[in-house]
Structure formats: structure tokens, C-alpha cells
């Protein structure tokens, strides 16, 4: 039983990181019908930005306040880069065929990945131990402080995002733009600023995810964005791409699925099973768990 609970804790921790990153994919897809392949690399970039803020701006201070400042500054930096990315790589292609935008997204991914390599070098960089290694042992199930922080902060951010999208006027504008951009424009919604907003939100959440990766695993490499991006992308599809609660659910489920397969079947097969799951979802329920069935527009 304690093994089951331990795997549950492992799965929820990694799942909440997937969920944070998946939100970036799903929000952009919801409004623009575009898979932002550069998102995973934005996540990787945020970990490096956070590390630089720690060493250069904060002077290697390790207090709680310093950690909060690192999170805020990284999220702000990545939000700016996100808006810039949309301006340079996606807005010029807004009316172009969808394939062109996808190719542009792949190109942006390579540019960001190689940019990280040129700025911070190809070597693995190592995050400082900003969160003290504190553990609690509940009769065999060990939970660490960093796991609690990751889980709690992810849940708070996701609930806040959900309330923002469902309850505020800006949220209504996002929902309207995702249903029909032209109609939204006719209703007086500035779709350009809605798109800028989703890039700000998506990139900031991705930045938090990237910092979690740095804080939890400590080792960050320029090409790690690919791996996390892929998992988050699967999570977004699992939950129903374009659907915000779906991305949260998909991330959590994927994390749990991965932990239980690795724990009970074989760690060797965890990845293979993840992709088998993806294929099954696409066959049985192509719109994902929470995605709605929509008639193809002709």
C-alpha cells in the first residue's frame, strides 16, 4: 500500500509539471488552432533564465523572498519572449495555410533551442539547492517539501486560471475568440490582444513549469524542452486539446499513468505505454477526455 501511495505522490508531482506546460499548448490551440511547438523550448529557456536571474540579479541569495522574485522575474521575461514569438513567428502567418504556421512553429523551436545553447553553452547547467531538502515520512511514504510546493503552487495557478477564464470579461473574450475569431471581432473584441494575452499566460505558466524542473531535478540542458514539450503535448491531447480543464486533467493523468506503469509494469516500457495510450485515445476518442465533439467546418 505504501508503495502505491508513494507512486501516487510521484505521479502527481510530475503530472502537475506536465499540466502547467500543457496549458500553454492548449490555450494557444484553443484560440489559434496552432500547435505551438516552440512551447517546450520556452519552458527550457525559462529554467536557464531563472538560473541567470539567481546568479546575476539576486547575487545567489537563497531566501524565500529570493525564490519568489526569481519566479516573478522569470515569468515576466518569458511572457515578453512569448509575445515577441507570436509577433515574429505567428502573426505574419495568421492568414496563411495552417501548415505554414506549424512549420514556423518548428522553426521557432529550433531557434530557441539553439539560442539557449549559444547563450548558456551546450553543457548541463546545475540549479542551486534553493528549496531545502526537507522530507516527511508517513509510515513509508516520503513526501518532500519541494513536492508539496510544486503540487500546491500548480493547483493554485490552475484554479486561478480557470476562474479567470470562466468569470472575468477578459476570460469571456478568450472563450469567444476560441469559438469564432471573426464573430468575436464583430462583437468588438480585440483578437490581437486576446492572442497576446494567451501567449503571456501560457509562457508564464510554462516558465513556472521550467523553474520547477530546475528546482526539482536540478540538472538542466538546452535540449530538455523537447522531452517535456512532447509529454505536455500528449497531456493536452489526452485531456482534449483546446480545453483548459482538459489540459490540467490530462497532465495529472499522464503523470500518474507514467508513474504506475514504471512502478508496476516496467520502467523500460513506460514511454512505450504512454504512446500506446496516445494512439488509443486518438482512435477511441479523438477529441480527448473533456473535448467536445465538433462538426468539421466545411
Amino acid at each position: 500500500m505504501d508503495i502505491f501511495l508513494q507512486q501516487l505522490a510521484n505521479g502527481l508531482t510530475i503530472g502537475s509539471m506536465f499540466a502547467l506546460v500543457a496549458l500553454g499548448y492548449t490555450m494557444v490551440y484553443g484560440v489559434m488552432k496552432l500547435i505551438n511547438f516552440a512551447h517546450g523550448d520556452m519552458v527550457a529557456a525559462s529554467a536557464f533564465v531563472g538560473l541567470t536571474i539567481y546568479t546575476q540579479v539576486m547575487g545567489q541569495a537563497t531566501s524565500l523572498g529570493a525564490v519568489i522574485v526569481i519566479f516573478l522575474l522569470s515569468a515576466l521575461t518569458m511572457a515578453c519572449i512569448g509575445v515577441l514569438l507570436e509577433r515574429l513567428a505567428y502573426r505574419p502567418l495568421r492568414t496563411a495555410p495552417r501548415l505554414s504556421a506549424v512549420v514556423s512553429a518548428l522553426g521557432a523551436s529550433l531557434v530557441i533551442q539553439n539560442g539557449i545553447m549559444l547563450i548558456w553553452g551546450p553543457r548541463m547547467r546545475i540549479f542551486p539547492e534553493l528549496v531545502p531538502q526537507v522530507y516527511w515520512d508517513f509510515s513509508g511514504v516520503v513526501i518532500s517539501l519541494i513536492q508539496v510546493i510544486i503540487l500546491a503552487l500548480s493547483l493554485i495557478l490552475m484554479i486561478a486560471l480557470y476562474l479567470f477564464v470562466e468569470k472575468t470579461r477578459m476570460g469571456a473574450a478568450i472563450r469567444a475568440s476560441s469559438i469564432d475569431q471573426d464573430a468575436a471581432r464583430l462583437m468588438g473584441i480585440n483578437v490581437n490582444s486576446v492572442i497576446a494575452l494567451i501567449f503571456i499566460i501560457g509562457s508564464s505558466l510554462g516558465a513556472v513549469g521550467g523553474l520547477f524542473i530546475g528546482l526539482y531535478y536540478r540538472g538542466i540542458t538546452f535540449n530538455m524542452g523537447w522531452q517535456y514539450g512532447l509529454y505536455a503535448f500528449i497531456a493536452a491531447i489526452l485531456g482534449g486539446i483546446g480545453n483548459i480543464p482538459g489540459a490540467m486533467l490530462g497532465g495529472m493523468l499522464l503523470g500518474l499513468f507514467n508513474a504506475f506503469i514504471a512502478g508496476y509494469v516496467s520502467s523500460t516500457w513506460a514511454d512505450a505505454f504512454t504512446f500506446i495510450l496516445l494512439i488509443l485515445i486518438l482512435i477511441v476518442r479523438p477529441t480527448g477526455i473533456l473535448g467536445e465533439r465538433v462538426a468539421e467546418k466545411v
Partner: protein
Amino acid sequence: MKFAKMLLALTAIALLAAPAIADTIKVGVQAPITGSYANEGQGIENGARLLAEQLNSKGGVLGKQVEVIACDDQGTAMAAAICAKDLVNKGVKLVVGSYTSTCAEAAQKTYFKAGVLQTSDGTADSLTEKGYWTFLRNSFPNSAEAEFVANYLVNIKKYQRIVVLSDFSTYADGLANAAEAAVKELGGNVVSRDKIKADSQNFTPVLTNIKSKHPDAIFFAGYYSDGGQLRSQQMALGIKADFYGGDANDNPDFVKLAGSAAEGAFIINVPEPAALPTPIAKSFIADYQKKYGEMPPSIWGLMNIDGMRAILHAFEQNGDTDTKKAAEYLHNLTTPLDGITGPIAFAEDGNRKGGAYVVKRIQADGSYINEYVQ
């Protein structure tokens, strides 16, 4: 426009002049210069360039300058195969590297077919089992380390429940399998033999499984980039077992990744660069520090440099750069050559002869203390 014309003219001159300056001995370096093992790959490239510089300042080898051509194999078999073709096409006589057995193995056949000598620190036994005369291992094979590990864990520390863990690479899987077999041979109890995916970072599911087996020792055959994170996650899960990292964990990044969890972990390897006693090692390491402002990342780069030195020495002794003759010379050395990492001589199958291991314990400040010396 004028500038472009000048450039064109300069290029033409350079092309015409090329044959005149082509009389060099080309040494290929195939190493993971980027990617997860970049730290080690750059160590190999830096070392090779330094040695070439030192030889050239003394008039080169056989009166020719030594030219180093590096190719980045990124630690992946696919890039390694491309590097091999590329280096052969560029006319290298010998290749130093690669760092990982997987990459050395992927390139091996290309060098063998082209008659290009290859010297690698890859420790997988399979590297020398193919009968390629072109391959010279400058480190000691996995089987030697596995026997040492098994003897240490079973007979000296008397562990009752041993876990053997590796990734899927040629080197790690080979070392782990050899260690598992050697432990069983000595009557030891292997409670679990698990595998992780290199670079996947999330090792807690595997470690949770390991925890349920209540081990008293974990032997991880794999690389430092995973080893440091494994150690940190092992402590986070409250697994009390002693952690033993195989030779590829011997890198400063292991300690940085594991952070405060590094203390008390053990690393098994041949002695580290700073502890090398010979004058030739001391002077080379001092020159390395002077040129690059840091210590060589580990002993692996230096082993590769020893391989390069040995082959160039063979060219010098034979009076020409015939690779077949050089290999024969190195296989039949009556007295070992002086190397940075100790005496160097090769068996008929291309293995380096000899080898002694140490067990090092990581202290609170991240430095090593010798726990056991063979």
C-alpha cells in the same frame, strides 16, 4: 564589391596553397562536444589540442605538424556514424574517442574498413570482441571493473541485498550485466536489476520499486548526469542503501547534481587526475590548467590522450604513419610506455593491460576520500 573580389582571390590562393601545407598528420577527435556528456567531450578535445600543440612546438611527429580535426558526435550513435565517415574522408590517420562506448562502437567498423586507428576510453567489453585491429582501448574493460565491484560488495562489505541499476547504453548495460553475473558468481544476492532511461530525470517510480525490495546497496552503472539525480532522488525517497556509482559517475557534476545528498555516496573508478603520481601526469595537468583555466573534467580525457600519445609514438618509432605497422608495434610492446594515467601497453585484442580501482567516498564539501584502494 571590391571586398568580395578580394575574398574570392584570397580563397583561390588558399586553395592553390593547400597542397603545400597539407603535409600534416591528421588526428581526428570524435567526442560528445555538445549534449549531456559535453563536459567530458570538451575535455577530450581540449586534451588532444594541447598534446598536438606540445608536440608541434617540439617539431611535430616525423617532422610533420600534428593537426587536430574535431567532430561532435553528441553522444548519439547516429551522429557518431556520420562523424566516422566525415573524419575518414578528411584523411585522418587516427581517431581519439569517443567518450561513450555506444559512439565508439557505432564508428568502429568505418575506421576498421578505412584502416584508421581508433583509441577510445569506452569500457564496454564488446568493443574489443569484434577482432578489429584498428581499435585500441585506452581504459580498462567493464569485466575488470565488474569483478572488482562484485568482490568489494560481496566479500569486503558483505552486503546482503544488492540492487544493480543501469541505463540502456552499450557501456552501462554491459557493466551492469557483468557486475550482476560477478556478484551472483560470488554467491551474492541481487534483489533487483533495473534500467532507467538516460536523461529522463524522473527516476522516482523506479526508485520507489527499488525501495520496496529493501536493498542495502545500490550499484549504478551509468553516467554522472543521471547518477547525481538518482542519488538525490534516492535520499528524497528515504532509501537508506549505500549508493555506489560506476566509473562514469566520476565527474564533478555528479556532486553538484546530487547537492547535499551527495555526501556518503561512493564512486568506483581508477584514480582521479589530481592523484596521478607520475611526473608526466603532473606536467600535463599543469599545462592543461594553464591553457584552459580548469582541471581536466575527469580521468577519461587523459586516458584518451594516452591512447593518442601511444599511437603517435608508434608512428615515430616505425618511421612512417602506416597504421597497420603501428598497431602491430603497440600490440607487441615489450616494456609499457609511460602514460599520463600510468604505464600503457596493449594486449593482442586491443585491450589496455593492467588496471587498479579505488572506492571513493564523497564528503560533505564534495571532495573525495579514498575508502578502499585495490
